[in-house]
């Protein structure tokens, strides 16, 4: 009997504060600093140039192997490659097959000669070595190409580091404070306005660490941090593989499920609801929501839908009857339509506990045009065979000619990569090269093929997360909360909202909601919330004029006057009076209860999509 897949929670789930991530980051940072200091100590005892640029050419086989491996495994290996496996299936095992020859060709082709010539000539950089072999203008061109191409190559590495740091640490108070400080510092620089300050902070921290340890310890520090990364990558992949296989019920189960999958159809949908009057609570359909139409078509949204745009007529594709009257509609939302009866049945039974959840009350959906895959549409088995499904190419993801090219690209390309060539100049002797070739063979085998296994299983566990969502950084206002007019919002893309840019009719929200207005007018920190330092989950950062104030019935005006609002996490702002205010004032003295209450509120908000419902559920 085929084991069933463990059902995943599909409603908004509570995400614990990633303390482990913070601890890991701190430990890693300390380790990097210690390695840099140790490298500096070594550097002081040896000839500067040889040590600083090549580690005195005495790398042993473990250091040489792991620095070579960590250099080869870039952000693409752990960022782009898994996404390709997820989207195209088992054919990625063929796509990456060239790595089987990387240890042989990359090290065997030039390693020995490069190392020897650099030692004989005393060259310590690639341009120097090229200049000795090809004197003249050619070396300048080669050097220019190395600088330009490696700079381009480094961009995604740094970007991914910034994104990861921001993702791991954005919940922490110190990170939020630093982000806001950075935001204030860069507020007058237009080139940074489009970026999340948290991401910029991550980029700054990572770049600073790299610059510090590289400057301090030179090549040896780079190698030792590579060793650290190489170990982390190896054990990380092994651990993830075991967990994934356990979750999916075995690789055979995953492959058999994948073999029954058909590529989905990709399109867009508009969610709308009839307006009930001048003030309508904003309704939200969360990202990754499942929904089903009456004719049995099953869909998953790949972006959050905010139903907040007033329209005199509902969205229409010309096939349905028009609904007369004012409606509120969402923008066009990227949506995936699941194909294949077997797959739909599996999702319903195993992932949705037998029933597709209903859309929020009163919400209708208008399906726009959905396009089939150019290759693989309507066919099962395309995820387990070559060339793999492709949305754009009718030849499939990996035609045979491209497979041939990629084999050569991986195996030969690595040998000529400047960062690899420098490392081949730095090992101590040929015996080290031989041992490293053996070790690297095992290492690549333990990294790349398991990544294929992991993300093939990933598609079965979490299907149809195919498309990059578009976040809308708008605000929605004018919800109602009892007698109080409320300001209800979520910051979709975690970007700062400038008061002057706020669309007063619309309030956007992804991570927070605000109810009430008077506390905003009170200044930067509401007395209702106490000190920001007490609970990082209740942080509201308002940068702007202190003298902004407005009545409680003009929340949009308050927000507009507040200048810039930047919020990181779920929080609630209430008026100084009224039921919500009393609730929060009481909760303020019971932090643990308050934290749970906010989680409940957040969860309720996601499930019910109506702020008033949230309050009812919360017992207000």
């Amino acid at each position, binding site marked *: 009997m085929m084991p069933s897949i463990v059902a995943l929670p599909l409603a908004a789930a509570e995400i614990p504060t990633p303390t482990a991530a913070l601890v890991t980051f701190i430990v890693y940072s300390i380790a990097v600093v210690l390695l840099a200091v140790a490298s500096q100590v070594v550097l002081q005892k040896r*000839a500067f140039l040889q040590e600083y640029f090549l580690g005195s*050419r005495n790398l042993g086989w473990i250091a040489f192997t792991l620095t070579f491996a960590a250099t080869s495994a870039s952000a693409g290996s752990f960022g782009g490659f898994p996404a390709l496996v997820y989207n195209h299936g*088992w*054919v990625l*095992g*063929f796509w990456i*097959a*060239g790595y*089987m*020859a990387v*240890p*042989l*060709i990359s090290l*065997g*082709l030039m390693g*020995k*000669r490069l190392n*020897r010539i650099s*030692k*004989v000539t005393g060259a310590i950089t690639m341009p120097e070595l090229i200049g000795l072999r090809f004197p003249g203008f050619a070396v300048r061109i080669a050097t220019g190409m190395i600088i330009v191409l490696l700079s381009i190559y480094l961009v995604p590495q740094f970007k991914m580091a910034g994104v990861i740091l921001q993702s791991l640490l954005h919940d922490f108070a110190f990170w939020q404070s630093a982000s806001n400080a950075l935001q204030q510092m860069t507020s007058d620089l237009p080139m940074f306005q489009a970026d999340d300050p948290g991401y910029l902070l991550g980029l700054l921290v990572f770049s600073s660490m790299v610059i510090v340890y590289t400057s301090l310890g030179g090549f040896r520090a780079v190698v030792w941090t590579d060793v650290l990364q190489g170990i982390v990558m190896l054990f990380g992949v092994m651990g993830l593989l075991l967990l994934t296989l356990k979750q999916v019920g*075995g*690789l*055979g*189960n*995953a*492959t*058999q499920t994948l*073999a029954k999958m058909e590529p989905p159809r990709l399109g867009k949908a508009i969610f709308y609801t009839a307006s009930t009057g001048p003030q309508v609570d904003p309704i939200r359909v969360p990202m990754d929501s499942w929904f089903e139409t009456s004719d049995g078509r099953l869909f998953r949204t790949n972006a959050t839908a905010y139903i907040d745009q007033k329209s005199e007529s509902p969205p229409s594709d010309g096939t349905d009857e028009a609904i007369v009257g004012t409606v509120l509609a969402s923008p066009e939302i990227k949506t995936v339509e699941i194909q294949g009866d077997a797959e739909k049945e599996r999702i319903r039974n195993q992932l949705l506990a037998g029933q597709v959840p209903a859309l929020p009350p009163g919400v209708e959906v208008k399906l726009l045009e959905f396009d089939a895959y150019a290759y693989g549409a309507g*066919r*099962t*088995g*395309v995820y*387990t*065979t*070559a*060339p793999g499904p492709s949305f754009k190419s009718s030849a499939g993801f990996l035609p*045979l000619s491209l*497979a*041939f090219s990629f*084999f*050569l690209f991986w*195996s030969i390309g690595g040998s000529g990569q400047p960062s690899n060539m420098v490392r081949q100049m730095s090992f*101590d*002797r*040929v*015996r080290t*090269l*031989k*041992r490293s*070739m*053996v070790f690297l*063979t*095992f290492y690549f*085998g333990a990294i790349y*093929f398991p990544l294929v296994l992991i993300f093939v299983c990933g598609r079965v566990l979490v299907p149809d997360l195919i498309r990059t969502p578009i976040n809308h950084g708008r605000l929605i206002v004018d919800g109602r909360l009892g007698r109080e007019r409320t300001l209800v919002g979520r910051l979709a893309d975690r970007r700062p909202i400038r008061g002057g840019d706020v669309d007063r009719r619309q309030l956007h929200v992804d991570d927070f909601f605000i109810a009430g207005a008077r506390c905003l007018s009170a200044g930067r920190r509401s007395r209702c919330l106490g000190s920001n330092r007490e609970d990082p989950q209740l942080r509201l950062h308002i940068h702007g004029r202190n003298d902004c104030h407005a009545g409680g019935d003009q929340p949009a005006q308050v927000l507009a006057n507040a200048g810039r609002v930047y919020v990181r996490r779920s929080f609630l702002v209430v008026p100084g009076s009224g039921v919500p205010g009393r609730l929060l004032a009481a909760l303020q003295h019971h932090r643990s209860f308050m934290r749970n209450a906010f989680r409940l509120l957040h969860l309720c908000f996601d499930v019910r999509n109506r702020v008033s419902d949230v309050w009812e559920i919360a017992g207000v």
Partner: protein
Amino acid sequence: MNSHQQTADETDDPIQYDPSYLNSLRELKYVAVIGTLALIWTVAYGGFNGYVSDAESKPLFFGMPSWVAWELRSWVITSLVTLWFAIFIIREDDDDLLDLDIADNDARTDDEEHA
């Protein structure tokens, strides 16, 4: 005409190549042959067996589609051949450089002592 040929013409002596260079050439031939065989086997096998329309008729092997499993086997075989190449074919012909390193280190130590 390269520098080696010029030297040989001028002295009428047979070309004296660096033994390490000759070893590297020999190893290069092994690398080329092994790499080419791996390429041919992988692409040819994948081409004949991976590009099929009837996926369900293909059995699984250790939970993988059989054609992928065969690609994995070629990965394993290539790895084993790489081990053989590393252990038995590559020659450790850098003793002269090790002597050079030792001499450099001795000279550096002497300089530091004098300083």
